């Protein structure tokens, strides 16, 4: 059952559940952050509308900078602003930034400890028909290995807005991963969001003990909820932890949930290698070793297709999560 104290969207399991792209939440967040703090500036690389920066551009003309199709420049100009008292939010598709600008992000943003917020739009394979060239599925792994960098993967538009507003208040490099497609709204404005603090979105029925914890982040958590609900019908009770902040990782929440359930399934729209599953395994293997099954992309590129087709083909759907849970509890 949904965790009541997380104040989630009660209509999440309705057929016509409200859906919005995560980028819309960013667009609202950056506008609000810009109103609150005049040091916030936005840089974009020829993708102003699709990265939802148009409203900011129109409202704060002199604080918006069009860099053109030049993502290395996007990152390094951001670096200069971020060490001179500004709070730059730099936006492109995740495949290009961070994708193309890794060294610049490492040296001039992270090592330099510049106050840059990197918005990785259109991440994951669910970007769909554009195909594998535009499907960033390595970005979490790469960003979380950079010292000074924080990594946030919101699960819906509301959480994306909260993450944007939070990033504006925290000094230092932050990567926020966003997605293109409409994603079911899991949370509400009242759901607590504290960077670095994971929270439970699904609990076993009262009086039942969880046999497995599902840990994940991003829109794919919706599929985890569908899986949990179906498993519940078969009297298999799990917990789901929303690990929205991949770095710094909430060790305490991960360990305590593993202690309660005894095994873990991780879910992410990202390569298994180096991603959220790996991050969770890094914590548990040294602190509280349990069996883990990882749902994610298994060392392959994506391809063209509808988001739903791709999510199914690449084993990120409800059934794949159910299979993983059944497998791990039998291990």
């Amino acid at each position, binding site marked *: 059952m949904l965790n009541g104290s997380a104040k989630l969207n009660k209509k999440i399991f309705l057929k016509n559940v409200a859906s919005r792209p995560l980028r819309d939440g960013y667009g609202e967040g950056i506008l609000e952050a810009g109103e609150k703090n005049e040091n916030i500036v936005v840089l974009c690389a020829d993708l102003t509308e699709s990265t939802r920066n148009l409203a900011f551009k129109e409202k704060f003309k002199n604080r918006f900078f069009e860099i053109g199709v*030049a993502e*290395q420049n996007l990152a*390094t100009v951001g670096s*200069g602003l971020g*060490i001179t*008292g500004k709070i*730059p939010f730099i936006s492109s598709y995740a495949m290009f930034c961070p994708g193309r600008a890794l*060294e610049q992000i490492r040296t001039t943003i992270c*090592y*330099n400890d510049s106050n840059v917020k990197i918005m990785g739009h259109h991440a994951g394979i669910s970007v769909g028909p554009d195909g594998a060239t535009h499907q960033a599925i390595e970005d979490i792994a790469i960003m979380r290995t950079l010292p000074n960098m924080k990594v946030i993967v919101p699960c819906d538009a509301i959480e994306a807005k909260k993450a944007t507003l939070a990033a504006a208040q925290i000094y230092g490099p932050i990567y926020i991963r966003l997605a293109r497609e409409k994603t079911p709204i899991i949370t509400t404005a009242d759901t607590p969001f504290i960077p670095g603090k994971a929270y439970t979105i699904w609990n076993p029925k009262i009086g039942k003990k969880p046999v497995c914890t599902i840990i994940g982040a991003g829109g794919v958590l919706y599929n985890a909820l569908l899986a949990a609900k179906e498993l519940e019908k078969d009297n298999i009770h799990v917990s789901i932890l929303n690990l929205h902040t991949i770095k710094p990782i909430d060790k305490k929440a991960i360990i305590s949930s593993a202690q309660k359930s005894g095994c873990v399934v991780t879910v992410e729209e990202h390569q298994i290698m180096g991603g959220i599953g790996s991050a969770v395994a890094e914590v548990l293997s040294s602190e509280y070793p349990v069996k883990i099954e990882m749902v994610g992309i298994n060392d392959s590129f994506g391809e063209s297709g509808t988001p739903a087709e791709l999510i199914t083909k690449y084993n990120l759907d409800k059934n794949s999560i159910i299979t993983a849970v059944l497998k791990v509890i039998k291990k």
Partner: protein
Amino acid sequence: MPHLNQKKLEELYTTANLIRQDIIKMLLNAGSGHSAGPLGMADIFTTLYFHILNHNPKKPLWPERDMVILSNGHICPGLYMTLAHAGYFPIKEAIETLRKLGSRLQGHPHRGVLPGIETTSGPLGSGLSQSIGMALAFNLDKKKNRIYCLMSDGEHNAGNTWEAIMLAGKLKLNNIIAIMDRNNIQIDGYTEEIMPLEPLRDKYESFNWHVLEIDGHNIEAISDAIDEAKAIYEKPSLIIAHTIPGKGVDFMENEYSWHGKPPNEREAKEALRQLRTLQNKIECE
């Protein structure tokens, strides 16, 4: 800037020479590092820190200061030694700790650990972009700080450099004065053989920059060029400074093999002998 009289000029040349001598000593101690670039840029470093810049070595974070961005971070021995001579930190520390474990003088410059270092650099091609970010921040805050971005010619192979040249021209950032160390060498050989860059002046001008060209060892010319660049209001300025890599040490001059190595004891001794002879000449003039 006040005009450079003969006495001041001699002082500056002497300072540049002493900085060169200390660069040799620090590279010998370090056992690795770059020789040619730091020696070639010593006159420009000296002119900036001892004549041009609005700065205060005792208050390195003074908000009104001009900023020097060293895009080609590998010539940092030149910057470090100039900062030390200007009073940012002890010369002894510079001579003894470059590239050593625990040192504030990292192999490439790192912001936050050493006074006077404005940004982390080393991987080529990102200094001008960072300068643009800083220039935009100063413009938003209506501040008059200037940014002097020092670049190598070799880093004009990099796409990031041209992305920045295009953007600074578009934004008409007149608070940026870029100085290119046009010494014609890079690691693998002569720049025009590795990847032809000319005509650099035409390229920059077509990207909406004001371009000046000078002898990078003529301190009067350096100072005059910067004065002219400051008076240009409608665009950023580039000063192409023709320099001799390894300047002051005959066996290092114009030899690309000296790009990335330090002198050994015998070579350092000979280099110091030559530089001291030059110093005597300056003082006798």
